[in-house]
């Protein structure tokens, strides 16, 4: 809402500067977002008359004019195409500073020039605020315009415009009078309502217009007034200036008056060409199936049966509260006008305007709720203005169909409740004073106040709404600062929250950096991740109204985020990437409204580890990432998990991928990403990735750790080296060793793995260090040798292992 300070002062005394007013309003709830000074910088621009035009001797496109600005006659060279002798124009004098630069005395092709003729644009004004014929080229004014008049005065720019940022509840401030009332409440000064007196002819409205409301629940009131002998012409300059300040383009007197009253009183009006209304009958009804209308913007619109229309017996003539119809539009030929001033159901208008994607100053106000008790007043005000400016003659009386009257609300306001909510006791006298300043009626009884709230404040319907009024006008900054006193409570994280934080911690300690990616994906990602048509991951949650195809589905895997960020980094020549993300994935659940959201960890590495001058970089391969996983499991004290080959995950390399199993369930995957997938992401190096269901990990987290005694007796170490087929899994060797070693085996560790020269094709050499220890005695060599031999034999028997010296 744009508020002209000059215009506002007609309705309320403002003993403070616009800046101070803005500050005070902002701090009491009607925020002034911006203060505009439309005339700023427009000094040294005055009206002048073009006395003569002569061709420029040396330039075809230039002419020189002699311009009379009252005090003197100046020579100006111009290239403006639409100059005529006798024209009244605006001349920027030498020294004026326009957005395009300072005007200086210039010589154009040898001819001296003392100024510049101005168009709206050159003055930094929005051409859209000017009548159509003034939007292009230099501005032109009536022949009787005095010479030497300052442009700011002429254009009504000697003003300040406050731009209000209104919250949806303050629809009452969508008018000058509404803002004036707010200003009066804030400053404590008096509101001066415009005096409304309608001059009427002797012709009466009875029998000239019929109004039928079929749906009173959608149209609570309909007022009509008839105006005869209408002469369509431009509205007076003062009205045009006010509309321009409000951001509305002047069109013609009748339309301008409806807009003026809209801005002044907040009541949207519509003007019909009376003679084009069949039978001069108005029917307010819902649209019929398939019904269409050409709206004022010349678009044919299909209406739904939910929408309210204004119709004559033949057809809809307006989409109620949203936009008029083209058929009954005011034109230059219009001679009789029917002014509509109605109250429509806010929700209905909001729905219709949303469905049709049509928002206007009117629909916006109806949707937020206007004052049904203001309809007649607004229609009268319009008639008054039309008559005063000689644009038409008012037929006596109005049609006023008011099936759903609304009374002022009477609300109880308890001072002690007010004190409880605000936190400070506001004296009853001050509460009363605030209510009165707001224009509310106040009565006092034993239990507090009974406040009568006028219908223009539709946002106030309960005690809490009144308490808010007290609080904001008392001043939030006058309310003290205290801390809650009640029982204390303990703040702590849940186990899941603690574990999640720990996961992030472990990942960073392992050298991976956290990323946060959007939860959206392009459905194409399903193909990019190599998922076949029958893959269950293709069951996705789809967004109905995404901003783009890129954001059509919700992620059902976190791997895309990792790969996508790797890809973006690679494109910027960032190498050696190690990322992880913790977030939710979404899977639809049959028969459920809401999808399942699963807290998930994903990680990816690519390239090499950090290297220094001493230590070389190591390739971040499968075992690097597996090390990260093992560290994570160890930190979370999860011991019973299993890593088993996984050959069928389409996103991963079939021979370099494993499932992460907890209690027999696969809860994640770790492996080298399938080359097709890395190609799809334009990643030229191997990528290792993992994804694991964090909720499963959280529920598997081991209990508190218990210390176990340090060994008292020395350990005996033995190495064992075998050659086995390449297919034999390290885990299988481990299992056989453990099974045969019994209780005395303290630990196994693989310390060498070798394939190649000296080992036959298809085989590998593995060397393990075994550590034996007993808690209660020193082991003898003989004991250990016996076990060792048993292990060797078992490896030979079950794996065909060949022992190496």
């Amino acid at each position, binding site marked *: 809402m744009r508020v002209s300070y000059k215009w506002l002062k007609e309705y309320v005394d403002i003993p403070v500067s616009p800046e101070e007013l803005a500050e005070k309003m902002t701090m009491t709830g009607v925020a002034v977002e911006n203060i505009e000074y439309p005339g700023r910088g427009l000094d040294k621009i005055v009206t002048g008359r073009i006395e003569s035009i002569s061709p420029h001797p040396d330039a075809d496109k230039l002419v020189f004019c002699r311009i009379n600005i009252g005090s003197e006659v100046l020579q100006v060279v111009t290239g403006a195409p639409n100059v005529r002798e006798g024209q009244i124009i605006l001349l920027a004098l030498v020294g004026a500073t326009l957005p395009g630069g300072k005007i200086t005395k210039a010589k154009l092709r040898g001819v001296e020039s003392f100024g510049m003729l101005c168009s709206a644009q050159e003055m930094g004004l929005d051409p859209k605020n000017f009548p159509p014929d003034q939007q292009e080229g230099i501005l032109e004014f009536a022949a009787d315009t005095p010479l030497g008049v300052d442009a700011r005065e002429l254009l009504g720019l000697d003003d300040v415009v406050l731009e209000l940022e209104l919250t949806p509840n303050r629809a009452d401030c969508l008018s000058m009078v509404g803002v004036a009332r707010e200003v009066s409440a804030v400053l404590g000064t008096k509101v001066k309502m415009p005096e409304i007196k309608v001059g009427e002819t002797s012709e009466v409205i009875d029998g000239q217009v019929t109004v039928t409301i079929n749906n009173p629940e959608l149209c609570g009131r309909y007022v009509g007034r008839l105006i005869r002998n209408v002469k369509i012409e431009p509205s007076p300059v003062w009205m045009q200036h006010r509309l321009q300040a409000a951001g509305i383009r002047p069109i013609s007197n009748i339309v301008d008056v409806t807009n003026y009253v809209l801005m002044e009183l907040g009541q949207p009006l519509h003007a019909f060409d009376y003679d084009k209304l069949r039978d001069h009958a108005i029917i307010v009804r819902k649209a019929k199936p398939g019904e269409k209308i050409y709206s004022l913007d010349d678009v044919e619109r299909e209406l739904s049966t939910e929408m309210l229309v204004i119709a004559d017996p033949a057809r809809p003539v307006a989409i109620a509260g949203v936009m008029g119809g083209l058929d009954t539009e005011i034109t230059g030929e219009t001679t009789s006008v029917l002014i509509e001033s109605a109250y429509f159901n806010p929700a209905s208008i909001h729905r219709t305007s949303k469905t049709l994607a049509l928002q206007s100053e009117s629909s916006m106000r109806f949707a937020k709720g206007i004052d049904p008790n203001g309809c007649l007043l607004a229609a009268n005000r319009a008639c008054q203005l039309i008559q005063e400016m000689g644009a038409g003659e008012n037929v006596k009386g109005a049609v006023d169909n008011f099936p759903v009257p609304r009374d002022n609300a009477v609300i109880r306001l308890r001072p002690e409740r007010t004190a409880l909510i605000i936190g400070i006791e506001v004296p009853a006298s001050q509460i009363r004073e605030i209510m009165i300043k707001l224009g509310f009626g106040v009565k006092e009884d034993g239990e507090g106040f009974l406040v009568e709230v006028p219908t223009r404040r539709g946002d106030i319907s309960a005690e809490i709404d009144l308490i808010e009024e007290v609080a904001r006008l008392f001043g939030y900054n006058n309310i003290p600062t205290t801390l809650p006193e009640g029982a204390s409570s303990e703040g702590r994280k849940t186990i899941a929250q603690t574990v999640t934080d720990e996961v992030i911690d472990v990942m960073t300690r392992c050298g991976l950096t*956290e990323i946060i990616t959007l939860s959206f994906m392009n459905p194409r990602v399903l193909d990019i991740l190599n998922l076949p048509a029958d893959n269950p991951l293709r069951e996705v949650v789809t967004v109905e109204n995404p901003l783009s195809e890129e954001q059509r589905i919700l992620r059902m895997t976190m791997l895309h985020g990792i790969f996508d960020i790797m890809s973006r980094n690679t494109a910027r020549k960032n190498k050696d990437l190690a990322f992880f993300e913790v977030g939710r994935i979404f899977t639809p659940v049959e028969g459920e409204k809401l999808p399942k959201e699963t807290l998930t960890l994903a990680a990816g590495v690519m390239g090499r580890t950090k290297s220094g001058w001493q230590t070389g970089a190591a390739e971040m391969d499968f075992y690097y990432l597996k090390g990260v996983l093992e560290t994570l499991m160890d930190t979370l004290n999860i011991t019973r998990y299993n890593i088993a080959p996984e050959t069928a995950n389409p996103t991963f390399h079939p021979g370099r991928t494993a499932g992460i199993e907890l209690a027999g369930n696969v809860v994640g995957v770790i492996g080298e990403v399938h080359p097709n997938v890395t190609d799809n992401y334009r990643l030229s190096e191997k990528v290792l990735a993992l994804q694991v269901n964090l909720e499963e990990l959280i529920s598997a987290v081991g209990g508190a750790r218990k210390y176990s005694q340090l060994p008292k007796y020395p350990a005996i170490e033995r190495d064992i080296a075998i050659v086995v087929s390449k297919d034999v899994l390290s885990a299988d060797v481990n299992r056989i060793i453990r099974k045969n070693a019994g209780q005395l085996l303290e630990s196994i560790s693989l310390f060498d793995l070798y394939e190649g020269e000296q080992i036959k094709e298809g085989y590998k050499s593995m060397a393990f260090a075994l550590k034996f220890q007993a808690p209660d005695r020193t082991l003898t060599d003989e004991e250990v040798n016996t076990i060792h031999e048993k292990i060797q034999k078992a490896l030979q028997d079950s794996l065909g292992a060949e022992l190496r010296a």
Partner: protein
Amino acid sequence: MRQKLESIRNDALKEISVASDLSQVNDIRVKFLGKKGELTNVLRGMGALSADERPVIGQLANEVRESIEREIEQKMSVLREAEKLAQLSRETIDVTLPGRPFQIGKRHPLTVVLDEIKEIFLGLGFEIAETPEVEVDYYNFEALNFPADHPARDMQDSFYISPGVLLRTHTSGTQPRVMEKRAPYIPLKVIGPGRVYRRDDDATHSPMFHQIEGFIIDKNISFSDLKGTLLVVVRQMFGEDRQIRLRPSFFPFTEPSAEVDVSCIMCNGAGCRVCSNTGWLEILGAGMIHPNVLKMSGYDPEEVTGFAFGLGVERVAMLKYGIDDLRLLFDNDKRFLAQF
């Protein structure tokens, strides 16, 4: 013979005094004291001495030997000390060479800020609640006193999954979700952090961002308690000398409602580019929980009251780190992430 012994001593001491390393000293030992050394040679001639002379010469020979040995010991210790110093000096390294690099990852700046904020509220006795990102209309709007078909809903343009199901537009749904489960328990002190979604995508808006909702329900909770709590939080977050300012505002689920500004962390209120010369930065919305919201979720608004607030995590992160472009936060450039 006495003469000979004296000359051996003199020769030996002279040689020792000029010896410059341990091996030379060793050679001197062999030369004078070894089995075939000079002293031994001289002593072989003892047999030719008279019985009177023998003990005298013997004693002298011992003295000579001892003095040479003492001298050798002394010399060797001096030389060893010198050698050690030389050794240490040879071992000098370039301490200005860079250290061995450890690969340590970083938390995302939004996580860092979220963690900080969570810690502040845990310290104030709040618990942390997590609620769905895909939400039903009821918890996102209706239970928060947003009427159907009301322009208030337009303030938050939503992504819909199906009729009545949407991506939550704020974390405020934490209020009804938690209240419903816990009513009529008091005191209830909860924060609800998480991702939220709105149909906006430009230089200053991301279709996904993070909020933290917080609320308290107890007996006698007032607007002044809200002010006090927020002041504590803001000071922990941005420093002890911060001020806050509350401006009346509107949210359907709180009344009275406020926008909360903090005195600019860049200019301390003097006015700068970051605060658009106002001296204040808008950082959160807050208010007293609307009685309708309490009622719908099982609390009696005549018995208890509460306050609620919502904080934009991106906004805080950008202010804290001086990040001037929101998109950097979701761009995840390695060089950006390495800075936190």
